[in-house]
């Protein structure tokens, strides 16, 4: 039987993904995740030796844009959804 992930693993991933999860929800989440991850392991059954990963569905290449300047947004448009301080975005404190 595979090891699966434990509660502390879930906490680590939640921290990596920057999402606060209430302690009481962690257990249930852990169980659900383990069920799903076990289901994902079904993929091990497929023999993909002759197949590389398919990263390009539309098989396009060399799609480019010319180096031309386009108008930027007005400061009002830029700031509409954020907290404005002298036209900078207010951000929570970053230690420097």
């Amino acid at each position: 039987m595979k090891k699966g992930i434990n509660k502390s693993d879930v906490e680590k991933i939640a921290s990596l993904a920057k999402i606060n999860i209430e302690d009481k929800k962690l257990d249930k989440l852990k169980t659900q995740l383990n069920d799903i991850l076990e289901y994902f392991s079904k993929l091990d059954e497929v023999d993909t030796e002759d197949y590389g990963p398919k990263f390009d569905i539309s098989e396009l290449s060399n799609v480019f844009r010319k180096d031309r300047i386009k108008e930027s947004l007005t400061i009002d448009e830029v700031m509409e959804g954020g907290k404005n301080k002298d036209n900078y975005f207010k951000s929570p404190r970053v230690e420097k």
Partner: protein
Amino acid sequence: MMQAWKTAELVKNGDISAKENILRYIDIIKKKDEDFNAFITLNNGQAVNRAKQIDEMVSEGIDPGKLAGVPVVIKDNISTKGMRTTCGSKMLKDYKPVFNAHVVKRIIEEGGIVIGKSNCDEFAMGSSNETSYFGVVNNPEKPNFVPGGSSGGSAAAVAYGASPVALGSDTGGSIRCPAAFCGLVGLKPTYGAVSRYGLISHASSLDQIGPITNKVKDAALMFDVISGKDDKDQTSIEYTSNSLENIKSDISNITLGVAAEFFGKGIDNRVENKVKNSISLLEDLGSNIEKVKIPTAEYSLPAYYVISTGEASSNLARFDGIRYGYSEEINKNWKSVFSENRGNSFGDEVIRRIILGTFALSAGFYGKYYKKAMEVRSKLIDEFNQAFNKVDAIILPTMPYPPFKIGEKKDDPLALYKSDMLTVPMSLAGLPSISIPCDKNSLIGMQITGKMKEEEKILNIALAHEEAL
């Protein structure tokens, strides 16, 4: 209800007034939406103004376009300039984009009128429209049952008559599923056929925008309007579509493929019977039926969920509350603020998928999950290509069961994921696939899947079936 293509014709000729027309629909929404909760934001004032403009254009002899005066419902994960675009989430409950999605621009250019933004599963993650911050959507064809998801609002709106056409988005079945559950037509285009610019990404290598309509010809019309290369989306392909003009219901030389992998185990008898009847009908209409094999089909579901959650975990990382979106107090260190903004505004399903996706991409697991899933995807595409050497299109059910009761599957996420088993293979392969009702009364849909860029062919088959009912 009058089809969109007909409405556009009559408006263009001055036979009906766009303003009168839109007021009728606005009235229907006013009376009925309370029961179904299909809409998050309505656009009444602007819609009427636009309709007046259309009427003026007509009186001046100017052609307003292919969608002249037609009301269009837009799923709320598609950006509409100046109009709230929430993705069914608390994170974006007050967010107003400063630009229009490419598809919205196209609809406006062709004289279409955005009548409102429809409800959907949060960030398009779900198959039943039960995860939206703005409440559950009710199925107008079968109240207290789910309308399907994630484009449940779009489907419900068309089903109860709010408009003849709607746009939804499909990552693993989110157009086809609600279309099937509400007795409608839903088309997921070829990957790249419709620009994703302005579509708030769920899974970048899978997402496509497509129409949900009452009738096949309207799906053809909508696809013509929204498809085509867009330089704002570098994954969009060259594609000029005239499917409405070219559409025909003669399928006498078509060969249809049936794969055993899409029937039998896990499929409800009722679904299997209805779809088999439809296949017989198609045979009667002159097509040939042949067996094909897609052995890797049963692995599409885990492959799909690994890939879509992986990509989604990355696509949703931008939601930190600084430039837009939900934000609580910021006078703390940034890591706490980010985690609180996100943790307190994302719903459970979204959080579950982000955690899964983060895990599937993480050090030590990338090879086992994401890369492996992409290899399985490669193999699946190969099998489809081989099948299409023999047949023109593949026929299969859309959903493994008819609509279920609201709340029935809420506590079993994995069971709900498995409802996508018949729609994800085409998503992985980037193939166009249309869902149409098997008959006039059941809420059971049949999928017609074609080769890439062969929307016209599958629309023809769909029309043949529709006309024969």
